[in-house]
């Protein structure tokens, strides 16, 4: 399956890069023309094009510029340096992971409660479903600032936002998964006089694993977004969100793009990691994908 997709994917990516280079020309030309008007010089077409691909603050950085910046701020810098993207990436990642861990754990616990208590099910589940339609991220600035004013800084406020964002998808997905066994399966356990606990561990929990992993993928991406947005309100100086903000204030477009790519790579890596864990787990549970 991978082999079949490899050539088409590479082709599509190749076309995207070509289009990207092409787009740089009209987008950055205005600046080039402005410079030429000022200095009174002229440029040939190829010099003009080359210029649009090598500006310091381009409207659209060329792929190699972004790649160079990424290389420069990751491999070429000391990891503990304030300019290292790995350092910033780690700041954001640690908040993401902490929040994701908290949100997932609480989410699973609440899901178990919902499945076993009618009262909790009817009181809380509708709110969990409705909350998926609410842009929870609107709460982020408030949480950061409020916690800041009571002295809670650093990783914890961002983690709380991350936790909140991964919480509800995990609850909804886990409840769906715990309830996925069909009537026939449940009846079988009743004929064995299985207790609720036995039914949970032997049937409901294993059945919920695919649903859990689907929610974890959504949850980890949401947690990352939460951590990034959490770095915006207080004008933080550390983290990928902070780099995005700083780049946007000072017009450092290449910095913005490299921070964005770093965030994208981080998101992809996290989702892929969960995917790998998912495949390994499901294979050990006997599923043949």
């Amino acid at each position: 399956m991978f082999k079949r997709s490899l050539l088409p994917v590479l082709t599509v990516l190749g076309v995207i890069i070509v289009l990207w280079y092409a787009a740089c020309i009209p987008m950055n030309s205005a600046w080039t023309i402005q410079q030429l008007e000022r200095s009174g010089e002229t440029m040939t077409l190829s010099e003009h094009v080359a210029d649009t691909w090598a500006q310091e603050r381009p409207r659209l950085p060329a792929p190699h510029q972004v790649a160079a910046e990424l290389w420069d701020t990751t491999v070429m810098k000391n990891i503990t340096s304030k300019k290292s993207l790995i350092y910033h990436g780690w700041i954001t990642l640690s908040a993401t992971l902490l929040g994701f861990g908290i949100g997932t754990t609480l989410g699973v616990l609440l899901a178990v409660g919902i499945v076993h208590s009618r009262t909790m099910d009817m009181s809380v589940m509708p709110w969990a479903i409705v909350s998926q339609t609410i842009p929870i991220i609107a709460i982020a600035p408030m949480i950061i600032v409020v916690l800041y004013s009571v002295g809670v800084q650093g990783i914890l406020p961002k983690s709380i936002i991350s936790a909140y964002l991964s919480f509800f998808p995990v609850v909804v997905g886990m409840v769906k998964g715990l309830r996925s066994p069909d009537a026939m399966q449940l009846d079988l356990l009743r004929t064995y006089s299985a207790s609720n606990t036995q039914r949970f561990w032997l049937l409901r929990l294993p059945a919920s694993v695919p649903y859990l992993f689907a929610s974890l993928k959504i949850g980890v991406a949401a947690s990352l977004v939460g951590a990034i947005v959490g770095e915006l309100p207080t004008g933080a100086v550390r983290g990928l969100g902070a780099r995005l903000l700083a780049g946007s204030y000072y017009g450092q477009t290449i910095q913005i793009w490299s921070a964005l790519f770093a965030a994208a790579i981080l998101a992809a890596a996290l989702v892929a990691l969960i995917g790998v864990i998912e495949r390994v787990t499901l294979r050990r549970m006997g599923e043949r994908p």
Partner: protein
Amino acid sequence: MIYVAGALVLWALGWMVNARLANGPNAQTRAVGIAVPVIFGVTILLIWELIVRGLSVPLVILPPPSMIATTFANSLPILWADFVQTFVKGALSGFVIGGVAAFLLAIVVDRYDFLRRGLLPVGNFMAALPIVGTAPILVMWFGFDWQSKAAVVVVMVFFPILVNTVAGLRDTSDMQRDLMRTYGASYTQTLFKLRVPAAMPFIFNGLKIATTLALVGAIVAEFFGSPTLGMGFRISTSVGQLALDMVWAEIIVAALAGSIFYGAIALIEKGVTFWHPSQRT
């Protein structure tokens, strides 16, 4: 202290009432189904009010619901203007543009297998990325006003809708496609009579996901730069002024906007996919 004690009593009371209702004989009725979460929500609000007053929680940490309600009522013109800026101009226009573009591309992608095999993995990848990070870039290109917010929304909703539509267009069985071949039907006939109607449940799944993404995108984009208007703008400036009651008021507007938008799409879905088993149970 008495407030706090009152809050605890209220919690116990609310829980007991809900437990009675949830386990009682009428538990399956619609009325009880609505009453229980409502009682739960009201109990939370009352406890919130009591604890904030009872423990004298500073207003810059957590204002009580009563104060938020007053601020809400007094700020309706501002809230409405923010709503129009962020939701109508930003989120809604981005949603429509992104949705139409994704649908058209999905049809093209469906037609050409090579394109599908190349674009779909890339699309799935893009759908998982923190697209809100594109906000500063789009603000730089489109300016501070609603156009950049709409652009962020377009990017955010594009991939989920694309991926879901392509999946839906492929969801017809071999038998259905063979039947079309026995009629000598053309590609366009098969597309519009079989595949698009069959894809509707998937398309609406993508649209529902997109409603939340649209609002999130518009609000977060405003955190990166905005004229003196908009829900995200109001939230970040009010937070800066520690006017938390206004922040909560805007959050209520956002919550209402989000749920009504989602509800509207779900309603249309009911009409269009009335035939799907999930709508008939």
